[in-house]
C-alpha cells in the first residue's frame, strides 16, 4: 500500500528473496539463512495464522462496488488500441483438456506465435499453457519465438495427491522445458487451517522449479471468502511465488473483477512491504475484449502502471484471444469482421 503499510510489516522487509534460498532438495523447513524475523512469521502454524489473520479484513460489498465502478471506465480510440495489444501480449494461451494431443498443442503454438495471419503487426501471446506431458511438444513448436511454455503441475486441478507426486510432476515439467509452472495450492489444508503445510508445499515446489517462474493458483472459488483470498495471496507471496493466480478455470467461480482487484491490492502491498514485485494472473471466464480491458483498468488504478506488462500481469484464457483479434481488426478497419476472419485452433 505504502511506506507506512510497509512499516506494519517491517519484519518482512528483510526476508530472503528466492534467489537467496538454498537449492536444497524438498526442504519443508525455512531456508537456514533466513532472517529470524521471517522465521517468526512462518515458524509454526500458530505464528503464521496470527500473521495472516492480522491482515486487514475485506469488506465484500465495498470491494465489489469498487470493482464495478472501475468497470464503468470508457476506454476508446488510442487507449483501446494500446489496451488490446497489451492484452494480447499478456495471454497465457491455454489448453487443459483430457483430449489434448500433440497436434492440438502445435496448432495452439502456431496461433500464439502469430495470432492474426492477416496482420503481422499483432503481438505474440506471452505463453502457451499446457499439461506437463505436452511441454516438450510445445517447447519444440515455440522454439525461437520468444513465447514461453507454461505447464500446470502439482496434480492440477484438484491438487489432491501426495507431495512426492506433486514434486515429481513439477520436476518433469521443468525437465521437459517449461519456463513457467502453474501450481495449485492445497485448498484442503488451507481450509483446515494448516497454513504452514500449504506454505511448505509452495516452498518445496518453488525449489523443484529451479529457474522456472512459479505461478501459484489459489483457486479463489474454493477459498470462497475474500478474507481467505487475501490470506492465501500473502501466504503464496511469502513462500516465494513469482505470480499469484486466481483459479484453475475448472470450478464454478474463477477470475472475477473483485477477486482480481483484491489480489492486485495484495501484490501492491507486498511490494511496499518487501520491495519484491509479484505478478497477478486472472484465469478462467475472461472471454471478451471488453472484459480484458476492464481488468487492465483494475491493474492500472490499483497496483499501478508498473504492472502493465506481460512480466507482471497475465490472462489465463483460450477464447479471449479471438475476441481481442476481432476488436483489433475493427479498430484498424472501422468494420466488424466476424468469427470466420480469425483462426480457430
Amino acid at each position, binding site marked *: *500500500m*505504502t*511506506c*507506512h*503499510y510497509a*512499516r*506494519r510489516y517491517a519484519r518482512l522487509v528483510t526476508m530472503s528473496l528466492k534467489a537467496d534460498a538454498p537449492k536444497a532438495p524438498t526442504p519443508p523447513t525455512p531456508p537456514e539463512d533466513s532472517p529470524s524475523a521471517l522465521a517468526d512469521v512462518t515458524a509454526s502454524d500458530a505464528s503464521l495464522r496470527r500473521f495472516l489473520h492480522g491482515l*486487514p*479484513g*475485506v*469488506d465484500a*460489498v*465495498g*470491494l465489489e*462496488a*469498487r470493482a464495478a465502478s472501475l468497470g*464503468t*471506465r*470508457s*476506454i*476508446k*480510440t*488510442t*487507449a*483501446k488500441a*494500446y*489496451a488490446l495489444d*497489451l492484452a494480447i501480449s499478456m495471454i497465457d494461451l491455454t489448453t487443459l483438456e483430457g483430449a489434448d494431443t500433440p497436434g492440438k498443442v502445435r496448432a495452439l503454438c502456431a496461433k500464439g506465435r502469430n495470432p492474426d495471419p492477416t496482420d503481422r503487426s499483432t503481438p505474440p501471446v506471452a505463453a502457451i499453457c499446457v499439461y506437463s506431458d505436452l511441454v516438450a511438444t510445445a517447447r519444440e513448436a515455440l522454439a525461437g519465438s520468444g513465447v514461453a511454455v507454461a505447464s500446470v503441475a502439482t496434480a492440477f486441478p484438484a491438487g489432491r495427491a501426495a507431495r512426492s507426486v506433486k514434486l515429481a510432476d513439477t520436476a518433469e515439467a521443468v525437465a521437459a522445458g517449461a519456463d513457467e509452472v502453474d501450481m495449485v495450492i492445497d485448498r484442503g489444508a488451507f481450509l483446515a487451517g494448516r497454513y504452514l503445510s500449504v506454505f511448505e508445499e509452495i516452498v518445496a515446489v518453488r525449489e523443484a522449479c529451479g529457474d522456472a517462474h512459479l505461478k501459484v493458483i489459489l483457486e479463489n472459488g474454493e477459498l470462497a471468502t475474500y478474507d481467505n483470498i487475501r490470506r492465501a495471496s500473502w501466504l503464496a507471496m511469502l513462500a516465494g511465488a513469482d505470480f499469484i493466480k486466481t483459479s484453475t478455470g475448472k470450478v464454478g467461480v474463477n477470475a472475477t473483477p473483485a477477486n482480481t482487484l483484491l489480489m492486485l*491490492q495484495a501484490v501492491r502491498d507486498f511490494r511496499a512491504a518487501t520491495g519484491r514485485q509479484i505478478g497477478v494472473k486472472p484465469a478462467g471466464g475472461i472471454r471478451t475484449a471488453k472484459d480484458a480491458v476492464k481488468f*487492465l*483498468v483494475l491493474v*492500472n*488504478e490499483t497496483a499501478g*502502471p508498473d504492472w*502493465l506488462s506481460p512480466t507482471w500481469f497475465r490472462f489465463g484464457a483460450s477464447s479471449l484471444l479471438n475476441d481481442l483479434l476481432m476488436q483489433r481488426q475493427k479498430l484498424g478497419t472501422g468494420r466488424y469482421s466476424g468469427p470466420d476472419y480469425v483462426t480457430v485452433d
Partner: protein
Amino acid sequence: MTFDYAPAPESRAIVDIPASHGLFVDGRFRPAADEAVFKTVSPATEEVLSEVANAGDDDVDAAVRSARKAFESWSALPGSERAKYLFRIARLVQERARELAVLESLDNGKPIRESRDADLPLVAAHFFYYAGWADKLEHAGFGPAPRPLGVAGGVIPWNFPLLMLAWKVAPALATGNTMVLKPAETTPLTALAFARICQQAGLPPGVLNILTGDGATGAALVAHPGIDKVAFTGSTEVGKAIARTVAGTHKRLTLELGGKAAHIVFEDAALDQAVEGIVQGIFFNQGHVCCAGSRLLVQESVADEVLAALKARMSTLRVGDPLDKNTDVGAINSAEQLARIRELTEAGEAEGAERWAPECELPSTGYWFRPTLFTGVTQAHRIAQEEIFGPVLSVLTFRTPQEAVEKANNTPYGLSAGIWTEKGSRSLWMANRLRAGVIWSNTFNKFDATSPFGGYQESGYGREGGRHGLGVYLDV
C-alpha cells in the same frame, strides 16, 4: 508507454436546450410578469446555457393561486389515480434518463458518471416509491384517513437539482398536496425539463408549478400566505431565516440543512474499502453534499497507514470535463461557491493545518478545485467546524471509541456519520451514541427512496424518504 485514457465524452447532442425558458405555471410556460430574466451557465466552461425567467412576487402569487385551485380536485382524486400520474412520470424519467443526466452535468458540473449512475436512478426510484404509497396512506400509520396539508412550497439546492426536486415533489403529490417549487438559481434546467415531463404525463395544470429565480423568489414563496407547508433543503443560514419567516404562522416546515459529518475509521476496519469509502464520502459530487464525510476521524494507530493509502488513491482521481465518462470529480458549481471553498481552505492553512492535494491539471476555464485534504486538524480549527461544501477533507485522529464519539458529536450539526470497523458490536455501540440522522456502517453516501433522511440540531428537522417522508406532508 502508460495507459492514458482517451477522452470519452458523452454526446451533448442528445439534449436540446432552448435559448430561453419561461416559468411553469398552471401547466404552461410563460415569461415573468415583469419579463425579468437571468442566465444559467455551465460551471465547467462558463458557457451560457440558457436564459431563464426570474419570478417576482406577482409570479409567486399566480403560481400559489394555481396550486390552490388545483388542490381541490387533486386532493379529491383517489390515491390510485394520483399514483398513475406518478408512475407515468417515473417511467418518463427513466426513458429520458440519458438526456436528463447530460443536462444535469452541463448545468451543475457534476460528472456524467454520477448523474447517470446515481442521480437519475434515484430520481426515478423516488417517484416509483411514493407512487406506490399514494393509495395506501390509510395504512401508513398516520390514522385511518390522513389528509393532505394543501399547497406546499419547495425550495431546493443546486447540488442535486433533480434529485432534490424528486425528494420534494414525489411525496407531496402522492399525499394529495399541490406544490410550487423553486429550483436553485444556478441549476434551473433539469427542473424545467421535468416540467415538460409533467406536461407529457398529462399532470393536471397547477398540481406542480415551477418558478425559477434567485433568493428573493424563494423568500417570497416561503412568505406567501397561501402556502401551508414549506420544505427547504439548503444552507443553515437560509434555513434559519425561513424558520423565522414561518414562525407564528400555520405553515408546517421541514428543513434539511448543512452538515459536518464525522467519518470514523477504526484500526480493525477493512482498510482498502475504508479508503474507498472516505473518497466516496468527500469527493462524491465535488463534496457538494450536505451529508458529506468532511471530517475524517481515524484511529491514531492506523492514521499514517490510512493517510498514505488515501493520498495514493486521491492521486488516481480524474478531475475534469463533467461530460467525460471517465471523470471522477467535476466542476465546482459556481464562482461564489469556489470563493467560499478558497476562503475556508486558506483559513485552514493560516490556522496551521497541513494542506495536501494531488498533482492534477485543471481546465483553464470554469470553476475548479483540486481534491484536497488537511492533516493536523483539531476541533479548534474552522475547517473542522464549518461546512466547506467542497472537495476538502479534514483529518483528525482519536484514541478510543469514547473519544471518537465525543469528537464526532462535537458539532452544531448532526446530519450523518460513518463508521468503519469489522467488529459488529462496536459499530452498534457507536451508532447508539452518535447524534446524527443517518449513520452508515462500512459504507458512505448511500441513498435509498425507502430510507428516511434528515438531521439533528442545525442540520434541520423533519425526515424525507421512506414512510417517514409521508408524514411531513400529511395533517397528522
